[in-house]
């Protein structure tokens, strides 16, 4: 697999020089994120998240299956993510590249292992039928920081999705069509958001790196947390070493950003929900 071309020397020098003066290429402040634009599809659970030119599509659907014998009381959540070459020049179909592995693991940790969705509420009939919720993430375009964008798209899709209501009488299960009974939202324990910080030699850390900033960074630190100040995932996999105080300072910045983002997501979801007509027969 050919290596992606690294940036030219003038680009490198300019970016480092500009960052020393806290200037970013797209005119943002060091700690300014690109405001995410969330668009919802006609179906429930279909969300496209765009942060600048980085676009990610997330879609949720659910079906009922028989649970595995070792966990008869819990539902199943599976996440499928694909980095097609559509996203960027450098990705090839088939073989998972390093970036794809990093994205998949991060999504897994933030959305599944952090217990965002209450799995026990997905159980319909113990040992017989549980809901299998499938989240599919497609990265449409990568202009930097697709991890944050994908996590946001995923969590908003899970919050947007409604599953059909199910009635259980003894051993009989009746699945009600959405037109008969209003579908039910997934029960969520909490809403994690992911923030990636890039740091450079001799410059303060910046939030939401663009493509060139990501490639030239000395290291990346991803923090996923919810608005209740609980950290779900912290990932600094190498990169240049940071003093402990800087890591803790970054945590504080992330806490503030999580609150802001939570408000924005709630407002967007409310707006979209008002626009949908729910027919009650």
């Amino acid at each position, binding site marked *: 697999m050919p290596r992606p071309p690294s940036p030219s020397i*003038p680009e490198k020098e300019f970016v480092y020089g500009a960052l020393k003066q806290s200037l970013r290429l797209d005119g943002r402040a060091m700690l300014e994120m690109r405001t995410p634009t969330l668009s919802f599809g006609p179906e429930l659970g279909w969300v496209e998240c765009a942060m600048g030119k980085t676009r990610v599509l997330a879609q949720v659907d659910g079906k009922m299956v028989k649970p595995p014998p070792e966990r008869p009381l819990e539902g199943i959540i599976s996440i499928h993510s694909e980095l097609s070459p559509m996203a960027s020049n450098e990705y090839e179909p088939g073989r998972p590249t390093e970036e794809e592995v990093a994205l998949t693991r991060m999504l897994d940790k933030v959305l599944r292992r952090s217990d965002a969705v209450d799995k026990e509420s997905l159980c319909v009939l113990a040992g017989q039928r549980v809901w299998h919720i499938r989240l599919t993430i497609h990265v449409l375009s990568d202009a930097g920081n697709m991890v944050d964008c994908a996590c946001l798209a995923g969590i908003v899709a899970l919050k947007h999705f409604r599953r059909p209501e199910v009635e259980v009488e003894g051993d009989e299960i009746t699945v009600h069509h959405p037109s008969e009974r209003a579908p039910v939202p997934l029960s969520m324990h909490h809403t994690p958001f992911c923030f990636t910080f890039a740091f450079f030699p001799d410059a303060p850390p910046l939030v939401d790196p663009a493509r060139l900033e990501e490639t030239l960074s000395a290291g990346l630190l991803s923090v996923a947390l919810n608005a209740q100040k609980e950290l779900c995932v912290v990932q600094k996999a190498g990169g240049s070493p940071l003093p402990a105080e800087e890591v803790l300072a970054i945590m504080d910045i992330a806490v503030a950003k999580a609150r802001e983002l939570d408000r924005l997501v709630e407002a967007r979801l409310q707006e979209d929900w008002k626009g949908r007509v729910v027919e009650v027969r």
Partner: protein
Amino acid sequence: MSSVLPGELVPAQHVNLKLGPGLLRQSSLNGQPLVISTRAGEVHHTTNRSRWWIEGNSRRYVPAPQESVVGVVVGRSGENWKVDIGSSHTATLDGLAFEGATKRNRPNLKVGSLLFARVSLAHKDMEPELECFDAQTRKAEGHGELKGGFLVQCSLKMCRMLLDPNHFLFPLLGSRFPLESAIGMNGRVWISAKDPRQVIAIARCIEAVDPDGGGMDEAAAKKFFSTLDV
């Protein structure tokens, strides 16, 4: 100026007809030559109707001889440099194709250096070749290594617009602060100014006026420029 889609007939007729990019001559059933367009865009022709071409937009560069391009050095093979110009193959640049270069006195390029060069050979079956001087006069004519500054990627149409002396963008920016630029026909523009803020402003203006990224007209661009911190 009408816009056409691929496959449409273009009424190009002249004794010394020369067809530019996007047009193809085909012979029809009754032996008469037909000219059809192969790209989507606007049909243009010279006033005496002898030269016709299609003005379209694209991002991928196809090398054509005598065009000036901005390239990045990606390696060496023997005495030649391998330069990436954004085309389907990496181009080669002879180590001696610089002004005043001899076997003992060569320019010291590194992997990652930026160059402003001219395409000397662009054949569809061969790798493109570059040169950093005019082969006849052996003078640089502005070509060579680009030091400092920053590189902006844009669409091919934008480069052509920037090269047009009547376009508004560079005079607008230049009236505020001095700037240097090298515009490559391959969708890459090198820009340089004293203050990094000015360079960032130029880069953002180019992206905003680019037809791919919105295509601001002069009035909107003026407003946008006035909001930037320079």
